[in-house]
């Protein structure tokens, strides 16, 4: 609603004054002296009188700075470096003012006012961005907002005591803002957004220097925002250039995470696999290939590798998200638990498919997150059940159980699309050596051996093969499962028609077999 009369002019005057003061400092960019004079000026102009006026001041100054950038960008005489330097002088001055106000607001021990002001400013800039994005449409420019956010982040992450004490709040405020500005809300800001999320200082703070991995869950949420945005575009085979650019940028970020923070990917892969489209095979493989840095993986091609006796197989991976709560509706979960316990109600099995076909995602026939959660829940229950009988999961102990009833029912009863997604849910558990990898590897091989139609065996082969023919990396659990399938004569793998259906397919199997033997 309307600003008080004269506020726009006052703000315009103050901001211009600050920018010229900031850029004319004779002693470099140390503007703390100029800052105290300026705050006095703001006070005289009554800007600091109420929270409402401060909010209006920041909105108006953000708009004025952004407007000046749009004007510069439309100036034909300003191009390349000159254009950017001119814009930076305005934007960096505004950022410096915000940073100093955040640092010096309230007394040095009182973080609340600082964080309150930072959240306010970030919210205002985000609001201006979304409004600008809405109003300008394809004329929208990410540049000024990108500069404001990154320079303010760098200013607030310099190693100064007053900032170190509020750093977790600064990171949280930024994650909230970046979630508000996620690509599905501001697609025109998506490249700057990914650049902010993957900036070396931001990544370092969120994933490395913040104690007890307190930044990990927020960072995972930002990546899920990105995957959710990319999913519809990646589900189509042909990638347009803008999508390829964002997709390739995402691969680079995931490679840095795989190299520097593999445990982060190990912990959060569940949520990522819920939103990454099934045809994004390499990106999913990249995430599933992560393994703890202190673990040494036995070479999957070791002749007669005895996976059952690896000591890591006895331990379950860390599971952070509450996947059992994702099994809805509650009646379905109750029937599931009842069936697992009592193998009743028998109708549970026949209703499985219809429960899995309830999807609120337009264009999706199956509820993939529910499928993933169900598979993981039944599998972990099975491991507990087998262990409860002081046995260890293997090809014998996993059979003839309510858990395997469910898996076999899904393999038999689902249509080809549903079965493909179901088998993908299992294959997503084939990672580094742990009890889940081992159990689900045995399950996949068991379903192959006990299949009552060749179609099931063909689709198990399809799901494994498409993950193997893609460029590296390949998860360890995937390799050991496929090697067992083609090496162990009990599965009569090479007798199947689908193995010899075309020369390319035959050659593929033989090349994989050669690298095994």
């Amino acid at each position: 609603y309307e600003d008080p009369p004269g506020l726009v002019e006052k703000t315009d005057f103050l901001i211009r004054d600050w920018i010229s003061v900031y850029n004319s400092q004779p002693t470099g960019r140390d503007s703390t002296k100029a800052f105290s004079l300026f705050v006095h000026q703001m006070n005289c102009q009554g800007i600091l009188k109420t929270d409402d006026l401060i909010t209006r001041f920041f909105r108006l100054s953000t708009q004025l700075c952004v407007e000046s950038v749009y004007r510069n960008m439309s100036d034909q005489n300003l191009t390349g470096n000159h254009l950017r330097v001119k814009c930076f002088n305005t934007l960096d001055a505004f950022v410096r003012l915000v940073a100093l106000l955040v640092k010096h607001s309230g007394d040095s021990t009182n973080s609340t006012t600082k964080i309150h002001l930072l959240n306010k400013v970030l919210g205002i800039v985000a609001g201006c961005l979304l409004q600008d994005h809405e109003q300008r449409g394809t004329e929208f420019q990410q540049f000024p907002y990108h500069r404001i956010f990154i320079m303010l982040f760098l200013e607030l992450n310099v190693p100064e005591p007053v900032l170190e004490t509020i750093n977790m709040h600064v990171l949280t405020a930024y994650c909230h803002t970046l979630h508000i500005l996620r690509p599905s809300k501001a697609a025109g800001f998506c490249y700057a957004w990914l650049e902010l999320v993957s900036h070396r200082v931001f990544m370092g703070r969120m994933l490395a220097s913040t104690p007890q991995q307190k930044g990990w869950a927020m960072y995972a949420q930002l990546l899920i925002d990105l995957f959710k945005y990319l999913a519809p575009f990646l589900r189509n085979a042909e990638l347009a250039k803008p999508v390829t650019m964002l997709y390739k940028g995402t691969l680079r970020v995931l490679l840095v995470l795989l190299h520097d923070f593999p445990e982060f990917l190990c912990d959060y892969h569940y949520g990522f696999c819920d939103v990454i489209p099934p045809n994004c095979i390499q990106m999913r493989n990249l995430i599933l290939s992560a393994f703890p840095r202190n673990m040494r993986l036995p070479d999957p091609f070791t002749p007669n590798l005895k996976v059952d006796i690896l000591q890591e197989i006895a331990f379950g991976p860390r599971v952070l998200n509450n996947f059992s709560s994702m099994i809805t509706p509650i009646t379905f979960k109750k029937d599931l638990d009842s069936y697992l316990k009592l193998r009743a109600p028998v109708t549970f099995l026949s209703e499985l498919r219809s429960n899995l076909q309830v999807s609120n995602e337009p264009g999706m026939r199956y509820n993939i997150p529910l499928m993933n959660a169900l598979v993981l829940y039944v599998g972990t229950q099975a491991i507990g059940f087998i262990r409860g009988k002081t046995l260890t999961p293997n090809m014998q102990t996993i059979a003839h159980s309510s858990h395997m009833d469910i898996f076999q029912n899904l393999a038999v009863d689902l249509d080809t699309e549903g079965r493909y997604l179901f088998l993908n849910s299992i294959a997503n558990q084939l990672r580094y050596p742990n009890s889940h990898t081992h159990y689900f590897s045995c399950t996949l091989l068991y379903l192959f051996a006990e299949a009552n139609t060749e179609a099931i065996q063909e689709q198990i082969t399809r799901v494994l093969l498409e993950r193997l023919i893609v460029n590296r990396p390949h998860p360890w659990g995937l390799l050991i499962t496929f090697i067992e399938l083609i090496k162990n004569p009990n599965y009569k793998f090479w007798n199947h028609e689908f193995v010899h259906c075309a020369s390319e397919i035959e050659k593929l199997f033989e090349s994989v077999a050669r690298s095994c033997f």
Partner: protein
Amino acid sequence: MVNDQFGIVGLLTFIRAAETDPNLVSLALGQDLTALGLNLNSPDNLYPTFGGPWADQPCRPQDLDFHVPPEYLINTAIRDKLACVKLNRYKEDLLFFMFYNNVGDVLQIAAASELYSREWRYHMEEKVWITQVPGMVLMEKTSTYERGMYYFFDVQNWRKVAKEFYLDYSKLEGRPIIQGS
């Protein structure tokens, strides 16, 4: 066999498409992730020098912001009061510093050009700077090569080291040219 896209035939369709239209299968067959400009075998963490999602090489040393007191930062107001960069006034070790710490930048070529004018030559294969040892007699000299004692600049120990070289003139870089600005 399964006759829709969820069986082996579905995969075969992708594999065959790869021959005709690789862009169609960029997701299904993936790409060489070692060619995205990240040194995946690096023993050190990659994130501190990560150039960003669009960069196909890590940050160079001069690209990494380091926190310095604001007084050290130069703004436009005093920029013009400071002397310009004049490479012909700098000693050799500063020129070498600029050459090795401004990779991919105009400064690297400018420093190379100044070293060239001071009779240093860049060996394009050995990737080292070489200059003649004053007063040292050449052991061999022909129209295509010469052999003798020379100084080369040892980056690891940051000093000139005398060493015998067989110098094939075709391996020495000509005068570096600074294009554009």
